[in-house]
């Protein structure tokens, strides 16, 4: 919180908020990812937002990391999504109202794993109707089991979400990662608008359309099941010791490039 004001008047400093609390548990690596990508990152308990001591509008990026918010009870991300949707802020609005305004102002919100589940249940992804009604869901993997593994993913050639990388591997760690769409309309629109920006090459959970990640039509609400923040260095990869190159010829892992690209986008936008 000490970093509220950009240091040395650096107007280019990009500020990322990393939400934690109630069982979210990937906040540290998420913050590390933003810092590595050149942004300032602040980890905050979600109750700091509800109490008004942290204002999301002072940030450029809001992120909801992975974990087990409320232990995945009822359904993964459900209780946290309910909190964001229903709990009254001091202003009598809800945090969802604030997030909508935040997005409306052209800012980014990202959700990884449990964060993706939250964004999906909030109707922020894929949000084709633009009304924040739920259009997709993430349910138990077809195997019925939690899975920690690495999986091949691909990013469409026209997309730059991973800074020019199009085929690589990312770690997955989830029990409820199977993406299902509400109906054919949603499915068609997701395809048509190219909202499934990240697909599995060897579908590990039964997701429709091999979908590993979604954006909304603006490309500024981004969610994915794989964990780019757990692949910041090439030494995270299971074959790093095999002289496997990182994704590029350096010590970074492919996950880093997601954050690098994101931060650069925001920088460009702030111009």
């Amino acid at each position, binding site marked *: 919180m000490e970093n509220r004001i950009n240091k040395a008047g650096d107007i280019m400093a990009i500020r990322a908020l990393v939400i934690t609390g109630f069982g979210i548990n990937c906040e540290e690596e998420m913050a590390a990812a933003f810092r590595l990508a050149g942004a300032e990152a602040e980890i905050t308990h979600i109750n700091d937002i509800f109490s008004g001591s942290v204002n999301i509008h002072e940030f450029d990026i809001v992120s909801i990391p992975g974990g087990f918010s409320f232990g995945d009870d009822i359904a993964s991300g459900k209780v946290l999504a309910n909190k964001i949707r229903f709990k009254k802020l001091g202003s009598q609005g809800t945090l969802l109202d604030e997030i909508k305004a935040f997005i409306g102002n052209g800012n980014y919100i990202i959700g990884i794993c449990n964060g993706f589940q939250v964004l999906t249940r909030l109707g922020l992804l894929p949000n084709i109707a633009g009304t924040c009604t739920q*259009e997709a*869901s993430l349910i138990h993997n077809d195997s019925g089991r939690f899975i920690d593994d690495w999986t091949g993913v691909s990013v469409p050639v026209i997309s730059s979400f991973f800074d020019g990388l199009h085929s690589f591997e990312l770690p997955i760690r989830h029990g409820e990662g199977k993406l299902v769409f509400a109906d054919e309309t949603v499915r068609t629109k997701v395809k048509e608008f190219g909202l499934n920006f990240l697909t599995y090459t060897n579908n590990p959970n039964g997701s429709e359309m091999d979908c590993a990640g979604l954006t909304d039509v603006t490309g500024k609400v981004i969610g994915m099941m794989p964990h780019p923040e757990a692949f910041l260095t090439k*030494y995270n990869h299971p074959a790093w010791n095999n002289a496997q190159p990182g994704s590029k010829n350096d010590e970074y892992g492919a996950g880093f490039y997601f954050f690098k690209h994101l931060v650069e986008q925001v920088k460009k936008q702030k111009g």
Partner: protein
Amino acid sequence: MKLPSYHTVQVFLKSGIKDSAGIHLREKIMKYLNIETGKIRTGKIYVIDYPLQDEELQRFANEGLSDVVVNEYSINAPLMQKGFDSYIIIAKLPGVTDDEGMSAQKTLIDMFSPETAPDVQKIFSQDFYLFENILADTELQVIADTFLANKLINHISTGRFEQQAPLYVPEVHLHIDNTVEAVPIDFEDEELLALSNSRLLALNLEEMRVIKSHYLSKKTASYRKAAGLPEHPTDCDLEIIAQTWSEHCKHKEFNAEIIYIEPETGRTLLIDSLFKAYIKNATQDVQETLEKAGLKWLVKVFSDNAGVVKINDEELFVWKVETHNSPSAMDPYGGAITGILGNNRDPLGTGIGGAKLLFNTNVLCFGPPSYSKSLLTGQLHPRRIFEGVRKGIEDGGNKSGIPTVNGSVIFDDRYSGKPLVYCGTGGIMPAKFNGRDSWVKEITPGSLIVSVGGRVGKDGIHGATFSSREIDEHSPQSAVQIGSPIVQKMAADFLEKAAHKGLIQCSTDCGAGGLSSAIGELATISDGAEVYLEKVKLKYSGLKPWEIFLSESQERMILAVLPEHLHELLALARHMESEYAVIGKFTGNGYLKVMYEGEPVSYLPLEFLHNGVPKKYLKAEWRPVAKSVATIPQGIDYTDMLLRLMGSDAVSSREYLIRQYDHEVKGKTIIKPLMGKHRSSPQDAAVVRTGFTSYEGIAVSNGIMPKYVEIDPYMSSAAAFDEAVRQIIAIGGKLPLYNTAKSLFWSVNDNFCVPDSVWHPENNPDGKRKLGQLVQMCEALYDMSTFYAIPMTSGKDSMKNDFKSDGIKISVPPTLLYSMAAKIEDVRKTVTAEFKTPGDIIYVIGRTHNEPGESEFFKLLGLKDTRIPMVRKEIAARTYRKMMHAHERGMIHSAHDISDGGMIVTLAECCFGNMLGAEIVLPVSRDTSAATLLFSESHSRFVVTVKPKHREKFEEYMGGKAHYLGVVTAEPEIIVTANEEKIINCKTEDVYTAWKTGLTRQVI
């Protein structure tokens, strides 16, 4: 019968959505019970004991509990569904942790912001299973018992839809009974013992006599009178003494005076405490050695919840391993999750407290999954224990956000009564919190006692001995506990923040013995404490004062807080939604005083409480077993033998477990359990980074070798120690004295799990021998630890691992686990096990001896041989020195330690990661046969590969320690030649399949 005041909401998947849980359950029921259930539909019932308007209820069900995309729901409707005939409903018994119900309640509060939020649980979650086919009640019961529920914690209803399923609500109904009883103690021996038995105090006659004379003394009478207490002990006094003097807390057997005799050799020892003589002394001697070498990383040993060593000037490493065996035998899921969460609280509650937990590790000992003996009363099948423990560790680790970075599983018939569940947790603590040394526990008299985390129920009170007669369906369940990772995670987040802000003096966890143990121990720091039990937050009313003090309800931490910090601390707890209660204060008067609503309940001098327990005197003896030598039959098909070994219980892949444990959360895991392009070569030590800004890290390994303990307990302990060391050497770790210019800590937890080792002519006729085994294991611990200058920093002993039922006793073998952690200077320089490149040269490092006893090879052949592998520590140390040297020069391209199954198993495992092959020629000699080279489990050896360009230099460095085997091949085949004959020739893929499916096909 439905009571009108409850609402029920049923939530299930829409018919178009695949019900994976149902499909898998159907398959399992068919596979293991041979019952065809037809389609299974799964879902949840929320029973709501909260006044809601119809419209609110509708909204709560629709938006709060159900997912619009995938769920359907019904409100206050019968469970009956078209196309399904039978049902099972699983509810939790009263007082059993129901996180899902609590989470639903939180959503309800978020949705409707009621003015007064319910203070206790008002929503209960239940699971239901609907079956298409007509199933008999006995079939439904067996399905529920085998896969879905445990009667110790669950209420099970089963039936057919001829009538509506009855509603069960797990509310606790208890008579309020606040009485404090004075217990007469002026008895003769027989009655004293009867008193101990009837109150389940587990105190022996000698101890009861000491208590009696304490209460009969004039001094006691006078201070008790002054404090307003009866002359004789209160129920609470007795319970506190019994808890404090329990084996679990005072380690009476490890502190006993032991006479050890070896009749054959005449060797006799008089040991005044195994702990002091071997464990503590080893660490003291190591500390001297380290200090002489200028190494000062050993910070705190044995005196706190976890051992503390220095990573660097800013950070400390906190490391604890414990077991949770008996609870895991009764309810494997609850036992394991409570075990892992309980063990997490040890590093959390070390020093000031608030360490950040970095990793978990687990070592599990089970009966074999194919166990076919008929089960004794209360005995669960090993497969069921396996699956329950697995799930407990999965939830305990994954939901806490702590990666389970490695572990080990051992199968042996002798663990089929009581499994061993070892849980380890390492954490990082800043060296200072707000200017104060973080590892120091300091308490000023006048500091307040604050309890944080879960609420208190009857959990764990005399758990194991609670008679089933006394339980009805509204008695709070007390024997088995279920941990709540979410409550603990929230408490841990809070504790970390509070520690950083300097708001706590110190903390400790509340585990076995509850407040009595936690406060009783902290009170020795300030020299006194005063507790007000009515302030303790309860799950339900009706507990007696002593029960509140002794309850082992989970997820609690006890903090010592200076009065000036209290306000800020409580505000932080409220903000982070961690429940708390200020329950007393520390004093300096030498007494533990317990009050309930203004009346004294217990008053005990700390000196008597902690130092009054009489010493135990035990006898130990060791006679060597008769030597036996077996010969290998002619005509063994070595390829077939390799495939069988790979699929055996001891060797086969643990991937089924590994993939369900999150081993990468926090993004710091560098060497994971399975590595390589195909993520399929098992590894030795795990390696984790400590942060994101440096490449410093920690290697973690486990050594456990109970298979040698009946033949040579000393070697069994030494072998386990060597195994843990060599795993760290394999990945490139450095021994403490290798380069003293670098301060690279080693920190070890020793964990003994032994059967009853107190001799008794009828009940335990071989008790002396068992204690003799323990003595020898301790001797090896001392020898190995001091030899390598690797210190024990913490540990635990669990003394009565016997399962008794139907007049039969199943005892575990004396089992010792060494869990080692060592600092790694640069994780980027570590080396993994899988072969990397075709053309690399393969060596076996270290000498292979003809030591087939207890080898997996001999087990498959059914051969008994007492020639077990010897630990030759001086030779091993020279090998390790050369390995460290070669690693330092970056010459080793892959390294894997040799253990169960021998060299060929290790080599095959190395092929899997990148699906390569190997072509080797065995250096057979007159002393060393092909079978020995392939399958001997001689210690202190590795399979390594070296790039061809390094070959010459490497061989020179290794000076006779490296024995050339052959080369890595691109062709994925394993080809072994001996005496110019191909004795193994198979595809890597086939070996891999045998290995991968060996265990999995028995448990899924």
